């Protein structure tokens, strides 16, 4: 019977599954985003190294790139989505089986208030996360680009560095730091700033802040790229024409980095919408998100069609949001993501 003799492995396994699913499913943005980032970073490298990479890529250019990409897309994007879509129209058996009986009941069931509530909370958390990421990430990227000088790329690496450690391990680290007996509380206690440990974890803010921590680099990178691409003489022109630094930022810098901002918003918002691990590990009883609802039906209730239907709805929402963002951001945002 369930007995988590090794809860870490339990969660790692779950996360691995979920991660694969997310990457293959509604998280295309992040995947391609990281490629784009990689190219940006290459763009910032010292000349000779960049030249070598360019030459290498040029040599590879003749290879039929369409082949592997298509296979990849079909295998890991279209096929899983297709399965999920297919399952969502089928009937669940009493014992967890999927019966090949066509039904729309799963979709009708989406009208229940629980779904609306959970989706709303998910959107709210994701929105809050995205906004905080923007408010923190933009100034951070701005600082790195404007004042980073030759340390720019190093500073950027510092931002990305945590991403190279497993998300799960970092989540556990945060839990250890922020628990009642964790470092933060013990430090505050010993400094006499608080009299009893703060309940930092297991509430909505813990979830949102952890999401911010996890996805901030995905905001910083596209914004950084768009700021680097900003022609500095435009700012000089603006200053020359009489704009104060403040006005300069709002009339030139901000509108011209809109593409990066929108790309960042999409890149942060989408993984947030699909996240379920953070509410699971950091959340309390009021942080149930859409991903957890999918898990509840797909796994806990062993009702694959019902879980699939929620997954389809979630994917649809993500697609609509992406469409709106791309429409608002025009070509530039699209290019920054892909």
């Amino acid at each position, binding site marked *: 019977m369930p007995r988590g003799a090794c809860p870490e492995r339990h969660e790692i396994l779950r996360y691995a599954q979920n991660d694969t699913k997310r990457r293959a499913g509604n998280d295309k943005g992040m995947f391609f985003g990281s490629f784009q980032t990689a190219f940006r970073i290459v763009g910032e490298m010292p000349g000779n190294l960049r030249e070598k990479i360019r030459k290498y890529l040029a040599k590879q250019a003749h290879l039929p790139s369409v082949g592997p990409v298509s296979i990849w897309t079909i295998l890991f994007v279209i096929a899983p989505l297709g399965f999920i879509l297919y399952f969502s129209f089928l009937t669940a058996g009493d014992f967890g089986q999927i019966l090949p009986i066509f039904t729309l009941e799963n979709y009708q069931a989406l009208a229940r208030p629980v779904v609306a509530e959970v989706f709303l909370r998910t959107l709210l958390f994701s929105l809050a996360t995205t906004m905080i990421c923007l408010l923190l990430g933009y100034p951070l990227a701005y600082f790195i680009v404007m004042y980073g000088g030759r340390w720019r790329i190093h500073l950027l690496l510092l931002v990305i560095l945590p991403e190279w450690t497993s998300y799960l391990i970092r989540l556990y680290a945060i839990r250890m730091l922020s628990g009642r007996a964790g470092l933060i509380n013990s430090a505050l206690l010993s400094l006499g700033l608080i009299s009893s440990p703060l309940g930092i974890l297991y509430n909505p803010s813990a979830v949102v802040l952890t999401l911010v921590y996890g996805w901030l680099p995905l905001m910083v990178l596209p914004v950084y790229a768009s700021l680097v691409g900003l*022609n500095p003489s435009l700012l000089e022109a603006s200053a020359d024409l009489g*704009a104060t630094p403040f006005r300069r930022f709002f009339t030139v810098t901000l509108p*011209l980095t809109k593409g990066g901002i929108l790309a960042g918003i999409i890149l942060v918002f989408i993984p947030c919408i699909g996240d379920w691990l953070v509410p699971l590990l950091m959340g309390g009883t009021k942080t149930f998100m859409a991903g957890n609802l999918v898990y509840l039906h797909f796994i806990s209730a062993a009702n694959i069609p019902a879980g699939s239907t929620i997954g389809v709805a979630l994917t649809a929402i993500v697609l609509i949001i992406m469409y709106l963002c791309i429409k608002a951001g025009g070509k530039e945002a699209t290019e920054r993501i892909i």
Partner: protein
Amino acid sequence: MENRESIPCVELRNLVKRFPGVTAVDHVSLKVEKGKVFSLLGPSGCGKTTALRIIAGLETMDEGDVLIDGKVINDVPAYKRDCSIVFQTLALFPHMTVEANVSYGLEQRKVPKDEIRKRVGEIIDLMGLGGMEKRRPSQLSGGQQQRVALARSLILSPKVLLLDEPLASLDRKLRKGMQVELKRIQREVGITFLYVTHDQKEALSLSDTIAVMDKGKLEQVGTPEEIYETPRTKRVADFIGASNIFPGKVIASGNGKVQLETEGGSRVIALENKDIRSEEVTGISVHPELVEVLPEGTGLEGDNRFRGKIVEMIYQGDFIETKICLDQTGGLITSYLNSRLGRETQFSPGEEVLVHWSPESSNILLG
């Protein structure tokens, strides 16, 4: 009134700007007269753009003062300076229409909407940009973009318009047209232009005054005629196109003439200049178009006549660039032969010829 007139529009006093490993501007002092076109001419990297950017407030100086209208503005930030710069890259705001680009400066100055509209209308007419108001810069031709950049700065009626190689991005024909256009506009608005260029022809045709810079130092300031006809240093002479340079010393003078012995040992004659002391002379320069090429048989009597052999003839359209190796010194001299004069086109490479220029064509160099 008299006093007011004498205040220069822009003045630089002992301006110094150092970048790591190089002094970009090296103790430059100059005065730009009001309502005139003043050019800073020099090869790329000579510090002219840096000087311009310091005036605009986009770069800080290490030493010296910048004055506009007699007031030291060293510590005034760019956005409060009464000057405007037109960038080499134009730096039009890509996300704004022509109209928004042009009105940008006035909006920053909180000019009333009605007045903005009026002034934008006027400047757009002046620039011949009517009908383009709603376009984005990317939808304009190079020349039109140029006009927008000018309009954007001119609309502010700055005390001085700083132009940083504004025509560099245009092709030759357009550049010619824009030069004429620039002169017309400058006459109409009467604003002082401080013009930075590496194109000597552009500087000569546009400017009231030219300052030639090299390696951060001011070499010579003068009218276009002075600069062209009497370059005072080897570097100016070379840059302005007086490419036949003969370093040498004065060995004799009299009869309104001076005689120099060049490093190669030739004797060349120039007219005497009362303002110049013989000891200061370091050589002469001759513009190639003033060097005559005569057939071999012509006599050697007279000033500045030398035997030589044509080594190269390069067709340049309106003239033939001819290089002649002088027998006496083995040095090269260049002559521009008018390609429409049949007589001179008879020459061919390898031919023995006689080279000649008149003493008044010899320009005395001082450095």
